[in-house]
């Protein structure tokens, strides 16, 4: 899922780059200040230890010049930090009057992604073209979440009733792990997502494929699963384009099999994992909204083969 360290210093976009540079600079200045204070304290401890029989030192009550110095110098450093802050902020100031290229809607505990230009809709795995700065609109369907891809962009809260904007861009193709950073309830810990940056042609191909309904021509086992899917309550929450399933409350499954992961990027998308999930989702990701349907093994394998056919 994620080979490299997902650290804020391994930035792969201009927006994150600016911040990590700024961060390192500020950290160095802070470290120097800490060292000065520590040096002052430790040298005092070394030099001015009480010696048995020693007298109390002469009282010294203060020194206005020193006080002025250590008021003014930190003040100046902070003014410098403030200018850096203003400059850094400008780098990631998304416009409010422009239409977003991508709309991300957060749910307890998964992510919905809508591509307004192509009408494509997907979940948890968000594809973007490499090297293009995209304006992302962030909206929440329930509580406050936070959209954070440490290596690509500053985090931004996803607040119900308060749409936010964010620049998103990746310099290199690859998978970038994102996660929800604002506590949002029971499964906040497992509300991850992937930003999958692709070269523009690959991205276009992906969009085109996603725009179509899933391939027809199911095998017998898959058809059995398909009938199960349509006859059970799956359709109340999930959508599969080209079928009567039109539920909106849970991830769209039209191209489920083309995804790398399941359960908001907590397990690789393999038939075994999917079967485990269907057998009892509450055991894999406790407290999520999908209940344990107590499916038989035969039902699980039927559904698994159907879902894994939705390329």
């Amino acid at each position, binding site marked *: 899922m994620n080979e490299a360290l997902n650290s804020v210093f391994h930035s792969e976009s201009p927006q994150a780059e600016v911040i990590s540079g700024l961060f390192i600079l500020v950290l160095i200045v802070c470290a120097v200040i800490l060292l000065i*204070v520590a040096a002052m304290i430790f040298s005092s401890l070394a030099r001015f230890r009480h010696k048995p029989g020693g007298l109390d030192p002469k009282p010294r009550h203060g020194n206005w010049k020193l006080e002025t110095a250590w008021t003014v110098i930190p003040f100046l450093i902070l003014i410098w930090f403030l200018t850096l802050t203003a400059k850094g902020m400008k780098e990631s100031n998304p416009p409010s009057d422009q239409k977003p290229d991508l709309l991300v809607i957060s749910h307890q505990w998964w992510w919905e992604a809508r591509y307004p230009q192509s009408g494509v809709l997907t979940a948890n795995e968000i594809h973007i073209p490499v090297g293009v700065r995209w304006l992302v609109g962030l909206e929440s369907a329930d509580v*406050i979440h936070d959209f954070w891809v440490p290596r690509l962009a500053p985090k931004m809260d996803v607040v119900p009733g308060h749409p936010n904007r964010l620049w998103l861009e990746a310099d290199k193709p690859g998978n970038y792990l994102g996660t929800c950073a604002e*506590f949002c309830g029971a499964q*906040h810990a497992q509300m991850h997502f992937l930003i999958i940056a692709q070269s523009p042609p690959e991205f276009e191909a992906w969009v085109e494929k996603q725009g179509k309904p899933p391939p027809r021509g199911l095998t017998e086992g898959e058809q059995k699963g398909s009938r199960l899917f349509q006859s059970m309550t799956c359709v109340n929450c999930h959508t599969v384009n080209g079928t009567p399933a039109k539920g909106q409350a849970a991830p769209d499954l039209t191209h489920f099999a083309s995804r790398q992961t399941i359960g908001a990027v907590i397990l690789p998308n393999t038939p075994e994992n999917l079967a485990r999930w269907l057998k009892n989702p509450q055991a894999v990701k406790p407290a999520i909204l999908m209940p344990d349907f107590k499916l038989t093994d035969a039902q699980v394998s039927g559904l698994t083969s159907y879902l894994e056919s939705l390329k």
Partner: protein
Amino acid sequence: MKGTTSHPPSIEIFHAQKAGEGFFSWVATVDHKRIGILYLLTAFFFFGVGGLEALVMRVQLAKPNNTLLSPDAYNQLFTMHGTTMIFLVVMPTLIGLANYFVPLMIGARDMAFPRLNAMSYWFLPFGGLLLHFSLLAGGAPSVGWFSYAPLSETPFAPSPGVDYWILALFALGIGSISTSINLIATVLALRAPGMSIRRLPLFAWMVFVNSFLLIMALPALNAAIIMLFIDRQLEAHFFLPSHGGSAILWQHFFWTFGHPEVYIMVLPAFGIISEVIPVFARKPIFGYEFVAASTVAIAILSFGVWAHHMFAVGLGQPMDLFFAASSMMIAVPTGVKIFNWSATLWGGSIHLTTSMLFAVAFLLQFTLGGLSGVTFAVVPIDWQVTDTYYLVAHFHYVLFGGSFFGVFAGLYYWFPKMTGRLLSESIGKVHFWLTVIGFNMAFFVQHFLGLMGMTRRVYTYPDYPGWGLLNMVSTIGAFILGLSVLVLVWNMAVSLRRGTPAGDNPWNAWTLEWAASSPPAEHNFDQLPPIQGRRPLWDLAHPENPDEPEASGGEPESKRSDRNKTGMMCFIASEAFFFIMLLIAYIFYNFSQHPNPGAQWLNPLKTGIFTFCLLASSFTFWRAEKRLGAKDHTGFLVWLLATLALGGVFLVGQGMEYFELFLKGLRAGTNLFSASFFMVTGLHGLHVLVGLIWLLIVLGFALAGDFKTGKTESVKTMGFYWHFVDVVWIVVFTAIYLVGPVS
């Protein structure tokens, strides 16, 4: 005024009450020292509870993909851990120390209002019980200590945990506000002769400033939790965006309280450090004036920085930038303190006692926590690291590495004063080193976890490179920290059983508490030394080199404030902030582009008549006071009855208005107008009702002839409250009825 000064005689009867023995004497005590100890013991108990919660969480996080705890159990744990540590541990500990030592330090006999003090204390166990009662009523709250709406609203948190959390915080808030009022009145009214404000020991000064912070910050929390409670119980939608409410207003209100709260938890610790370092460096504090004034700067600035908790909310860049500026400014006075403490060490004769070790560790750890705080003020950095373990590390450095280390320094310093026995230095050093190692092991690595992308409040995490190892280190550190607490308990037990007797002044310290016996007598001081400077005991021991040589004649006796008036003024200030918050909420919900309907049913003329009655009651009360001053008791009774009648008429008028609105179908849950209207006017009405009950009590006293002796303070104090309630109504009436919802 040369020589010794006898303490002013106490007049109140309950002061003379003898200290009894046994359990009940502790329950019934009004002695500030015993109440202080009760605070400390209760806080220590909850420290154990909160600590165990933390250890269970650390076990869960020790390895990736751990399944020891269910997500909900973990979420309850961190919510309870945060709430417990803040409201039931740090605040009561600091309040307990303040209770015990502020009166001693200023040479007072007790707090200004001893019985109020006992009441404040009992709100603490009561609040703690309320909070933990949620466990029996369907589970503890699991929405985090700042209960962000809408997660804390009924649709997402249907179990009553959040309701108990609200009630507990409200109860604890009442206790904290009344203690703060008490402390302010104590410092302003009961200072011994010669103890001018300028000479206050820094601990007393910081507690004093801190008390103002409390009475102004807590009303914001109270307003917020009342609104949340109305949402949850009366189905209003203040914070539910799906019904037009605002999730962001909760955050504004909460952090208006929440950021000052951070300083509420560290300022008294600063005070302890400012006492401990000079004594063990054998020098007066360097730059007393700057340490004292920077406290005021921090206190005031702390009200203007709350939005830095919300940089990632998307408030817009102008807002973020201004708050970045003010947040950075607050680092300046904090830095001034650090430098002054360090300069106090310089050139001293340093005794590295356990207390001093904790103080020195405080200096370094708090500096680290403060500097990582500066990185949060740089907005883009905050955007990356907020809500990660970097933040968790930061505030534990401030609150544990800062506040708790300060408290430990204070504990080793003052324990002999409280018990008469020294804590063991050798066990103390074991305690110290275990604490330092455990603390830094547990929390320093969390900086790296945050930078590596680990978000806070996760009950489990995937097996990413490095995460498992660092978390294991942190868990081991937490257990070492837990062990250190056991060592502390052992140390205290050993000391209580067979500790070295301390004597009155084991550290050769200079402030007044060391002039009392250890433990101090019930009445605190047999005789106070003369106070002619900041360090009376230094002046006593070094008559050749006093701190303020020009003050040899003693400070000219400055007037002390009247405690009743001071207390009442503080209460009114606190209430004023509360109503300001409510009115802000009203304006926020109604002065918008599309206000909810309902205001058209208000009748300004009719309500205006009742308003006139209420205002007239202020006038009649003023007349009553005048009559009382002229010893005309009949006149007093007549005017008092008129006041009661007019106040009653106002309430009846409000009742009629509510009834009419009810008939028209308006309920608290109807829309945002009705919710905010009923909240503001209802809470005001409640205040009028309280005033009326109070008036009835005054009436009872008057009929019993209590005021014939000339003791009329209670009437005057009551008057302030009554006039205040009227002034609030003028503002409320103007905002709601005259200006009205505008679009």
